[in-house]
C-alpha cells in the first residue's frame, strides 16, 4: 500500500501539490477571516458583557451543526465552490476564536485594569495597551487549535465542488482508488501538523522578551499581516476568467471520465479555457441550482434523472418523451441537451452466461419460465424499494427459488462463484465488462431510460458556437460496453480517468 501511495504521489506530484496549494488557500482565508471577525466579536462581547452569553450561545449552536448539513444550508445562498467552503469553515472557526478572546480578556486581573483606569487611560487604551497584550497567550492558543481544526475540516470542502485535498479523498472513494484517498488524507494530516508546529514556534517566540526577540516579533507580525493580506487579495482579484467554460460532474467514475473528455476536446479544438469541477457531492441536486445561477455552464446528465428530478415529472421516463423534455428545458430553464453519448446507465437484470446459454435466455420475459430454479441476489435496499424486487417480479411474472442480500461490492464475485444465478446491475458497471454474465433485455420497458447527454446553458451555446459542434461530435460515440470498459479501467485497473479519456478519444480518432 505504501509503495502504491508513493508511486502515485511521485507520478502525480503536480496534481497533489496543486490540491495542497488550494487546500492551504481555502483554509488560510477562513482562518484569516475567523481571526479578524472572531477576534472582533470576542473583544466586543468582553467590552459589553451583557451580550456575551447570548452571543456565545448562538455561536455554540452553529458549532453543533454537522458539517455536511451546514454545507447543505449554505448552497442555496452562496452556491457551489470555494466561497461556500470558506464560509462554512469560518463559521466553525469562529467558536474557538471568540471563546478564547473572550476568556483571555475576562481573565485579566481586575486590579491591573483598575490601575490602568485610575491612571487616566481611555477605554480604548486599556483595551489595546493592557487587555489585549495580557489576553494574547490565550488568544494565541485559540488560534493554534482553530487553525489545525480548519485545515482538517477543509477536507470536506470538495463535497460541494471546492478544491483542496478533499478532492483526492473524494475521487479516491468514488473511483475505488484507495491509494489516492490515503495520499490525500496523509497530506491533510501533514499540513495540519506543520501549521501547528509553525504556530507553536510563533507562540514561543511571542513569550520571549529580549530586545532582539521584540524586533523579531514585530517583523513576524508584519509578515503575518502581509501573508494574510496577500491571500485575501489573490482570493478576490482573479475572479472568473472571461473565456472559461465551467464544467461540473457528478461523483461517479464515468462522469469523471466524461469530464476529462470534454476538457481535452474543448481545449484542443478552441481557445477556450475549461474549469472542471469534478465529483460535486449530491450530484444533480447541487449541480442543477448552480447551473441555474450560472456558476456552471454544462454537465453530463441522464435523461431519466432530468425528467424526474429536474423537471419533477412523475411517472416512468421513456425516450419517446425526449422532445417534450428538451422543450421544457429550453422554455423553463434556458438550457438544452446537446450531444447524447449513446450509452444508457440504467438498471439491468443479468444471469450467469452458462445459464443464459443453457436455457436460451435473451429477454427478461424469457426468465419467467426458469426463475423457479434460480437464486436472485441484490443489495438489501433493492428488496425494500418500491420499484425494486416486488415490482420487478410482478412486471415479468418472476418467482425465484431463493433471494440473497449482498454487499454491492461483492455481488459480481457472488455470481461468478455460483452463489447466485441472477442479479440487478447498472448497465455501465465497470465489473460488468469483465464478468461472465448476460444482460437480459428489458423488453417490457420496466426500467426508465437513463441516456447520457450534456445539459448546457443556452447562453453559453450562443456565446461560443464552436462548443455545440464539439458536443455534437460525440453523439452516439459511446456504447454501454465502451463505458463499462472505461469504468473498469479506472476502478479495476487503477488507471487515471484522464488517461482513459485520452485513450478512448484516440481510438475514435478525435485526438489530434
Amino acid at each position, binding site marked *: 500500500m505504501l509503495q502504491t501511495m508513493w508511486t502515485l504521489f511521485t507520478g502525480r506530484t503536480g496534481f497533489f501539490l496543486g490540491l495542497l496549494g488550494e487546500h492551504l488557500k481555502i483554509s488560510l482565508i477562513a482562518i484569516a477571516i475567523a481571526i479578524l471577525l472572531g477576534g472582533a466579536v470576542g473583544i466586543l462581547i468582553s467590552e459589553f458583557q451583557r451580550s456575551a452569553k447570548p452571543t456565545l450561545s448562538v455561536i455554540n449552536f452553529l458549532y453543533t451543526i454537522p458539517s455536511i448539513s451546514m454545507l447543505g444550508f449554505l448552497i442555496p445562498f452562496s452556491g457551489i465552490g470555494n466561497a461556500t467552503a470558506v464560509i462554512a469553515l469560518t463559521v466553525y472557526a469562529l467558536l474557538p476564536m471568540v471563546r478564547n478572546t473572550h476568556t483571555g480578556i475576562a481573565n485579566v*486581573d481586575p*486590579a*491591573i485594569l*483598575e*490601575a*490602568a*483606569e*485610575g*491612571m*487616566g*487611560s*481611555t477605554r480604548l*487604551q486599556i483595551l489595546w*495597551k*493592557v487587555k489585549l*497584550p*495580557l489576553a494574547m497567550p490565550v488568544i494565541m492558543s485559540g488560534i493554534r487549535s482553530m487553525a489545525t481544526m480548519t485545515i482538517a475540516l477543509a477536507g470536506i470542502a470538495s463535497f460541494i465542488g471546492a478544491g483542496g485535498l478533499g478532492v483526492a479523498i473524494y475521487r479516491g472513494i468514488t473511483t475505488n482508488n484507495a491509494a489516492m484517498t490515503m495520499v490525500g488524507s496523509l497530506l491533510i494530516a501533514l499540513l495540519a501538523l506543520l501549521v501547528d508546529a509553525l504556530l507553536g514556534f510563533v507562540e514561543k517566540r511571542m513569550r520571549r*522578551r529580549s*530586545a532582539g526577540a521584540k524586533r523579531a516579533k514585530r517583523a513576524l507580525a508584519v509578515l503575518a499581516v502581509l501573508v494574510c493580506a496577500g491571500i485575501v487579495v489573490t482570493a478576490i482579484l482573479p475572479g472568473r476568467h472571461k473565456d472559461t467554460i465551467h464544467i461540473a460532474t457528478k461523483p461517479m467514475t464515468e462522469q469523471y471520465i466524461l469530464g476529462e473528455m470534454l476538457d481535452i476536446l474543448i481545449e484542443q479544438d478552441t481557445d477556450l479555457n475549461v474549469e472542471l469541477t469534478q465529483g460535486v457531492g449530491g450530484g444533480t441536486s447541487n449541480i442543477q441550482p448552480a447551473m441555474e445561477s450560472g456558476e456552471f455552464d454544462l454537465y453530463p446528465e441522464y435523461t431519466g434523472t432530468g425528467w424526474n428530478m429536474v423537471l419533477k415529472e412523475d411517472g416512468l421516463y421513456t425516450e419517446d418523451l425526449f422532445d417534450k423534455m428538451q422543450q421544457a428545458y429550453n422554455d423553463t430553464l434556458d438550457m438544452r441537451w446537446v450531444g447524447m453519448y449513446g450509452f444508457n446507465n440504467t438498471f439491468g437484470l443479468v444471469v450467469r452466461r452458462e445459464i443464459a446459454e443453457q436455457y436460451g435466455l435473451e429477454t427478461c420475459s424469457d426468465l419467467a419460465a426458469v426463475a423457479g430454479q434460480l437464486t436472485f441476489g441484490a443489495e438489501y435496499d433493492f428488496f425494500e424499494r418500491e420499484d425494486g424486487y416486488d415490482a420487478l417480479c410482478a412486471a415479468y411474472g418472476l418467482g425465484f427459488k431463493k433471494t440473497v442480500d449482498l454487499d454491492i461490492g461483492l455481488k459480481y464475485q457472488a455470481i461468478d462463484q455460483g452463489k447466485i444465478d441472477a442479479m440487478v446491475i447498472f448497465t455501465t458497471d465497470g465489473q460488468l465488462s469483465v464478468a461472465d454474465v448476460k444482460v437480459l433485455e428489458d423488453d417490457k420497458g420496466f426500467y426508465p431510460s437513463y441516456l447520457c447527454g450534456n445539459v448546457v446553458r443556452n447562453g453559453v451555446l450562443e456565446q461560443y458556437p464552436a462548443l455545440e459542434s464539439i458536443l455534437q461530435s460525440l453523439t452516439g460515440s459511446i456504447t454501454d460496453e465502451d463505458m463499462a470498459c472505461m469504468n473498469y479501467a479506472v476502478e479495476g485497473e487503477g488507471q487515471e480517468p484522464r488517461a482513459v479519456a485520452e485513450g478512448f478519444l484516440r481510438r475514435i480518432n478525435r485526438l489530434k
Partner: protein
Amino acid sequence: MKTAIEFQRVTKAYGSKVVLDGFHWAVEKGAFVTIIGSSGCGKTTALKMVNGLISPDAGDVLVNGESVKSHDLIGLRRNIGYAIQGSVLFPHMTVEQNIAYVPNLLNKRDKARTKAAVEKWMGIVGLDAELKPRYPDELSGGQQQRVGIARALAASPEILLMDEPFGAVDEITRGQLQIELRRIYEQTQITVLFVTHDIAEALNLGTMVLVMDEGKIQQYAPPSELLQAPATPFVKRLVERERQIR
C-alpha cells in the same frame, strides 16, 4: 492656605452597608495626609472618589475647587498619581514602559521628554538605570514598589493617591520605602493621600492624619496632636501602643 481636595457631605452605601456617612472634609494643598481606620471604614472608597473611580450617592467631591463630576475624568486622572496595593505593575511591560505609561498617554510624540522623565524618576525612587529593560517578575518586591511609585509620579501630578502601597513588602524594605517617599514628598511638595492600616506608618509619614471609623471622621490632626489629645475613645485605643513606645 489653598484647598486641594474637598468632600462635601458625601454619602456612599453598598447595598445596606453605609461606608461613608455625611463625610465632610478638606485637604490643604501640599499636605501629606495619611488615612487610617478599621477595614471597611470607607478609606479606600474616599480615596477612589478623588479620581472618580467611585462616585458618591449624595454630596460632592471637589478637586482644585471643581467638582469631580464636571471634570473630564481622563484628564483629571492623568493629573493624579495613583498607586495601589500589591504589585499591579503591568506584567507585559518593562520597567521603562511601566514608568512611561502615563507620560505616553499624555504626549505620545515627545519621546525624549518621556525618556528624561523616566530616568529622572528612576533616580528619585532609587532604581538603578540598568533595571529599565527588566519585567516586573524579574524584580524584588521592594523594587516593584519603587517602580509603582515612579509610575504614579512620572507625569509630575499635583496629587498622589496611594492605597496601602507597601502592604506586601517586608518590614525592612517598608521602612526604606517610607523614608524615600517622605523625601520625595519634601522635594516635590505635592498633595498626598496615603491609605494605611498601620498606625505607626500613619504617624511617621503624614503631616496630617485622618482617623476614620464606620464612615465617619474620628479625628483629623497632625500626628503629635493625635498622640497627645486623642479626640475619641476609638482614636485613644488606636494610638495607645504608640504612645507607650514613644
